[in-house]
């Protein structure tokens, strides 16, 4: 009773929500019959918010107060290159918060990325509740397989703020595999090619009846459909600059117009060999308003984005190598993500994998379906399929010499734990600081810093004689927990990594309570 679980695909550009009813997973439509919803939040003058496709239409009306592609920023530090890039091209204000966190400023108020995510999740929750007719409190939310610990935690926080109990954070490609193979009794090796708005993932899985085992996973969280749009935008802006000496990208409204045009143009090129762009009154000079007129062929666009596509295959090479498999050992390849509907992507994938990608699976719905199936499987724990997922990045510790000491290598099945015994480096050293990193580089400074563990009260001893046993755990959400213990005194210190920059428990609870009397805030839906 009241124990329904929804599966939510919280995407960079679009989101979807699904539920299992009578044993069948279905994507839930909103009141307009839409199954896919833009991950856009628009803040209106009267203090209310719009989320979804209606919010997207406000991108041109009110670009400064309309937030999109927030997923590219969630869980990242302010100084990271992705944030810098976003600052340059996003129409909304991106600022630095506490602990090098990122904040978005709209109409004088600041929001964390988890809050923006929460607004989208609240809308997914509302859509489901509206269709199902009862309150929904539980959800499974998906993330890119290559999301690091901070990004996963921030996504989970968004769920909590939205008033949901997040049963599990699962990887998007794994969810897609589950939707593809559920109940079919397959015995196959498959690849999931997941190109979303902001991220690219590839997972190689083995399906053995009811078990979905991820053999390897790799990704690039700086590569997505948005980058394809950016190339198009740059092309249009540079051509315009040559002609009129005006850089359209410096004007927020003009930038949004370019973005909309690029998006449409991109899809047009999937159908046609050439497309023309016309944007009237895009800029003003002393002579009056000028329009943008440009042509682009499919061939030329392909050249513009060739390197982006090659990047995805470089990642695919990595995943296959880790799995010790070649493309002909795979039985199927499945496409996930809106951008994979582009014909150039489909062709490139077919060429790389030597097989036609599976059709009959909607790349924009499959992840939400898989999440819903997993949610139902958890509630009904004894039966159903089993996901054996892996951690996408190696986890290790910084050493005095600058090297990364790997404790858990990437593609280790989760949940997992590993212990390592470390000694002191100085006589009578009283405390040990352990800095944790995620990544594959042999030097820790080139990897992603996660946080710090501090063990205090080590008994005085000569260097090398006191020993610290550190236990690393990665739980089923792919989130890291660390414990450390002095082997001799038995003194234990258990902490959950709080990555500097993440929200504290109290902050999350506060935000959840703040938004839970939600009704007043959200804009009235049109009848």
């Amino acid at each position: 009773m009241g124990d329904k679980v929804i599966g939510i695909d919280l995407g960079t550009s679009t989101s979807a929500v699904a539920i299992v009813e009578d044993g069948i997973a279905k994507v839930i439509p909103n009141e307009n019959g839409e199954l896919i919803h833009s991950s856009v939040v628009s803040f209106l003058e009267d203090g209310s918010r719009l989320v979804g496709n209606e919010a997207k239409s406000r991108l041109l009306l009110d670009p400064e107060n309309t937030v999109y592609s927030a997923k590219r920023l969630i869980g990242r530090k302010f100084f990271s290159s992705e944030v810098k890039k976003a600052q340059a091209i996003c129409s909304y204000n991106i600022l630095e918060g506490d602990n090098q966190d990122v904040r978005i400023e709209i109409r004088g108020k600041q929001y964390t990325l988890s809050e923006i995510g929460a607004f989208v999740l609240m809308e997914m929750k509302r859509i489901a509740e509206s269709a199902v007719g009862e309150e929904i409190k539980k959800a499974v939310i998906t993330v890119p397989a290559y999301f690091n610990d901070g990004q996963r935690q921030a996504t989970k926080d968004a769920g909590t703020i939205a008033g949901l109990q997040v049963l599990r954070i699962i990887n998007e490609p794994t969810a897609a595999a589950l939707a593809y193979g559920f109940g079919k009794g397959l015995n196959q090796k498959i690849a999931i090619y997941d190109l979303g708005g902001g991220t690219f993932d590839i997972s190689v899985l083995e399906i053995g009846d009811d078990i979905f085992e991820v053999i390897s996973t790799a990704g690039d969280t700086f590569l997505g459909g948005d980058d394809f749009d950016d190339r198009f935008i740059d092309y249009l802006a540079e051509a315009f600059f040559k002609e009129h000496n005006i850089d359209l990208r410096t004007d927020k409204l003009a930038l949004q117009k370019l973005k909309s045009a690029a998006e449409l143009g991109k899809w047009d090129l999937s159908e046609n060999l050439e497309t023309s762009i016309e944007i009237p009154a895009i800029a003003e000079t002393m002579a009056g308003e000028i329009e943008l007129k440009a042509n682009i062929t499919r061939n030329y666009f392909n050249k513009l984005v060739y390197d982006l596509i090659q990047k995805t295959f470089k990642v695919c090479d990595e995943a296959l190598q880790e799995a010790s498999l070649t493309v002909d050992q795979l039985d199927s390849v499945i496409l996930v993500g809106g951008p994979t509907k582009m014909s150039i992507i489909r062709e490139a994938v077919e060429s790389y994998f030597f097989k036609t990608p599976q059709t009959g699976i909607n790349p924009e719905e499959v992840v939400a379906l898989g999440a819903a199936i997993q949610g139902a499987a958890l509630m009904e724990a004894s039966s159903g399929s089993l996901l054996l997922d892996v951690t996408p990045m190696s986890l290790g510790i910084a050493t005095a010499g600058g090297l990364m000491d790997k404790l858990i290598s990437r593609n280790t099945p989760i949940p997992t734990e590993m212990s390592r015994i470390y000694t002191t480096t100085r006589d009578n050293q009283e405390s040990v600081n352990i800095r944790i990193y995620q990544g594959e580089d042999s030097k820790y400074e080139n990897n992603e810093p996660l946080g710090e563990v501090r063990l205090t009260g080590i008994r005085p001893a000569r260097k090398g004689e006191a020993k610290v046993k550190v236990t690393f755990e990665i739980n089923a959400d792919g989130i890291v927990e660390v414990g450390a213990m002095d082997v001799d005194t038995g003194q234990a210190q258990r902490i959950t990594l709080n990555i500097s920059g993440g929200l504290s428990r109290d902050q999350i609870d506060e935000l959840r309570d703040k938004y839970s009397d939600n009704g007043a805030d959200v804009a009235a839906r049109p009848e």
Partner: protein
Amino acid sequence: MALDERKKIEINSIARLLDELDYFQILKVPQNVSLEELKSAYFRESRNYHPDKFYNEAPDINKKVTAIFKRITEAYKILSDNETRAIYTEGINGAQRAKNLRYIHGVQGGPPKEDEGQTPLGRKYFQMGKIAFNNMDYKGAKINFQLALKMEPKNESFQKRLAEVEEVIRGKK
């Protein structure tokens, strides 16, 4: 869905015995298992002990099952790699079997180390004894080794060190 009593008993006993089993025993395979059969075993045991299958159970059952499952994946990971499997197999078939049941990087595979003690106090006295010995305080070393041995009468390193220091003291007289 209530967990039947038999299953609960099974989980409780395996969780209790976990640190006494080697990886082959945990996966219920012989030491010469093929890679293919190893994988089947891994899938089979995962179906039985994956925490997701016990998602709605009481926290303590969940905790035990998670510990078992982690050990299962640890076992699979180590045994499915030829190099680590070889080192591991040697470790558990030797004299130090009890200490080698878990594969710990950086510790496994080296020359047999001196047994520095299994109890906090035993270790403490042993360390102090060693320091004293290095400082040529043989009387002090002897007392500490004796204390250490009191904590762990069966510890062979302690016995050895004590015998050593007693010899030195005898030689000096």
